[in-house]
């Protein structure tokens, strides 16, 4: 089954390249997304056997992130059908600097979308650190053309930054992996592979200073891709310049994949008995990310950058939760799920706003409640969800993390956490409420009705977050406990 999970998007990519017309290509995208989600759902009913000689093996953390990536991809694929139809072909005028540009061919865009899903699937379905590294590198390769879909100066700038900064990050992660190999070096009985299953039982005997050095490089390397401050510089640019459905995938799925790389390393350090070291670093980077996000969210004039900085904040919360350990790990995993769904929905909604207002400025995009009633309502609901307001799932997860911080006696960290959350809530509410309220600018001509394909996917995602906030089914709770248990929670 794991090989099918990987092959479905790869075949869809090949088909996208081969098909001559756009309409069947969009159908292929949606069908591939549905098939992928169905296969992922099947992994819950029947645990899949390892594939490709054990290189692919699904464990609970991988299954969580795979499910999130698949769900988000399905929402993005359905949204893409409407988006790509509206984009059409031919030359366009950039609404910001007036320059004429063209979009990348839809053939390439769709194929890269499918390959992006395949590479994320590879990351989530392997426990082998070498394969995981290859998968994360493949995500960069497949997502860069997606960021450069609108071929104008700003998207090129964002793509270059993304490529360069993330490539340096990936190279540092490779260095971290090599240091792991040094830590486990034993000429008498070499490690059979870089599989976590082989590493964990021998971790206690591995060289501690090398393990620590390896973790630092892996944290900085994968942390760059995850968007942890201060290595987050590429993130606001790439998220704001990509098409909204790509931003949704970057923020909701890709950042999680990089986080999985850090979690694997944390697992090894935990087995070696030095989880305090990796946990301490995660807390530090987590708080730093929240602090940096708070600074940039207050007074942020670009609503897509606002969402991007909010992703930096939430990646910080995830790192913080895992770093604190205990019950916070369960909270962090629930938070990962809720953040992915909410942020995915918010980016898709931001695409609707951008399509009507032709601006990313939150000062100019006003009167959403009147111009786009459904989108406006989703924007407001998404804001409440992402800021951790009840009754959405993020409220529960943030509260669980806070409770675990008090239980662990990390009072200073808890105070910083609360202050940052409060500042971000106020900062975001000013922007979001200003956009929802007020008169519609005269130059904007609202549509008579909003197509279902534009609001259906974000609505479904937000509904899921609401359900997760109101009621956490026992099987899901047990599953999240297994995920947290695997990471030391």
């Amino acid at each position, binding site marked *: 089954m794991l090989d099918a999970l990987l092959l479905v998007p790869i075949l869809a990519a090949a088909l996208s390249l081969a098909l001559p017309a756009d309409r069947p290509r969009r159908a292929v995208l949606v069908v591939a997304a549905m098939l992928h989600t169905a296969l992922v759902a099947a992994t819950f009913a029947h645990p899949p056997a390892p594939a490709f000689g054990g290189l692919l093996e699904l464990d609970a953390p991988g299954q969580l992130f795979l499910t999130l990536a698949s769900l988000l991809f399905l929402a993005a694929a359905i949204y893409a059908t409407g988006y790509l139809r509206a984009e059409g072909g031919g030359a366009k005028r950039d609404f910001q600097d007036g320059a004429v540009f063209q979009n990348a061919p839809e053939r390439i865009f769709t194929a890269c979308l499918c390959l992006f899903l395949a590479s994320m699937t590879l990351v989530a379905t392997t426990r082998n650190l070498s394969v995981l590294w*290859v998968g994360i590198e493949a995500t960069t390769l497949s997502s860069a053309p997606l960021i450069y879909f609108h071929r104008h100066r700003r998207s*090129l*700038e964002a*793509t*270059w930054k993304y490529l360069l900064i993330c*490539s340096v990050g990936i190279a540092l992660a490779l260095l971290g992996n090599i240091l792991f190999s040094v830590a486990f*070096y034993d000429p008498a009985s070499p490690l059979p592979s870089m599989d976590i299953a082989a590493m964990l039982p021998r971790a206690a005997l591995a*060289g501690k200073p090398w393990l620590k050095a390896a973790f630092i490089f892996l944290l900085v390397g994968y942390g760059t891709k995850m968007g942890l401050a201060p290595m987050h510089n590429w993130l606001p640019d790439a998220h704001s310049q990509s098409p909204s459905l790509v931003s949704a995938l970057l923020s909701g799925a890709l950042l999680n994949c990089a986080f999985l790389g850090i979690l694997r390393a944390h697992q090894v350090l935990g087995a070696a008995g030095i989880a305090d070291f990796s946990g301490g670093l995660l807390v530090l980077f987590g708080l730093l990310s929240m602090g940096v996000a708070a600074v*940039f969210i207050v007074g942020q004039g670009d609503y897509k950058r606002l969402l991007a900085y909010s992703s930096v904040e939430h990646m910080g919360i995830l790192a913080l939760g895992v770093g604190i350990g205990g019950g916070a790990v369960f909270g962090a995993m629930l938070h990962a799920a809720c953040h992915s769904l909410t942020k995915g929905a918010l980016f898709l909604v931001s695409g609707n706003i951008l399509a009507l207002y032709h601006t990313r400025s939150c000062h100019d995009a006003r009167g959403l409640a009147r111009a786009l009633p459904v989108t406006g309502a989703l924007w407001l609901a998404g804001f409440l969800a992402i800021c951790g307001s009840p009754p959405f799932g993020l409220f529960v997860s943030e509260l669980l993390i806070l409770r675990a911080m008090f239980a662990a006696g990390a009072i200073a960290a808890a105070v910083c956490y609360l202050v940052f959350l409060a500042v971000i809530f106020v900062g975001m509410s000013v922007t979001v409420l200003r956009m929802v309220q007020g008169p519609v600018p005269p130059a904007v001509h609202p549509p008579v009705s909003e197509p279902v394909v534009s609001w259906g996917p974000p609505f479904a995602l937000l509904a899921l977050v609401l359900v997760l906030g109101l009621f956490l089914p026992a099987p899901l709770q047990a599953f999240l406990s297994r995920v947290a248990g695997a990471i030391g929670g």
Partner: protein
Amino acid sequence: MELFESVLVALLCCNLAYLAISRLRVLIRLTAIQGALLAAVPLLFTGPAAHGHALALSLAVFAIKGVGFPALLARTLSRLEVNPVVEPTIGFHLSLVAGVAGLLFSLWLETRLPFPPGLFPPLLFPTALTTIFAGLTLVVARKKALTQVIGYLGMENGIFLLGTPLSGQGSVWLELSVLLDIFVAVFVMGIAIHHINKTFESIDVGRFCSLRD
């Protein structure tokens, strides 16, 4: 001094020269020299009984890092008709100081880390780490996209060097680092620089200034 150590010293000199050179063409030639030196490392490391794997790896590294990349860089340089002078954001002297500081730090770290006996031959660890530092310095201290790519390659060379002693241990890190090269070749070099030049009529990434907070 053994041949292996001489190669490492030559690599160290390459690193410092990287940071002091102001002409792009010379920098590209230096990349070729560093690539060729690096190709010798797996062969020399395994000694006269070099098995087929080390030989294949050496040949691949020579073909990619010693010949392919420099040729691609030189072709890009001549096709783009860019100003052949390296434009620093951090001056040459300061870059050199950073390189020397990297070397000193690496030497100090070598005395602090408990190396597994027999894994790293003398000088290999500090050379590898200095190569990584020099590459990183080039990435952040130079304006042109082409120079950033060269810096990135330097960084990768350092990682390759560090992974060499592990190649007999069944790990695939060396092969993966070569894969990283191919990734850079296809993506960064072939496509991105071409687009940057087309769109900005320059490969000076200093013109990237529209995305800021």
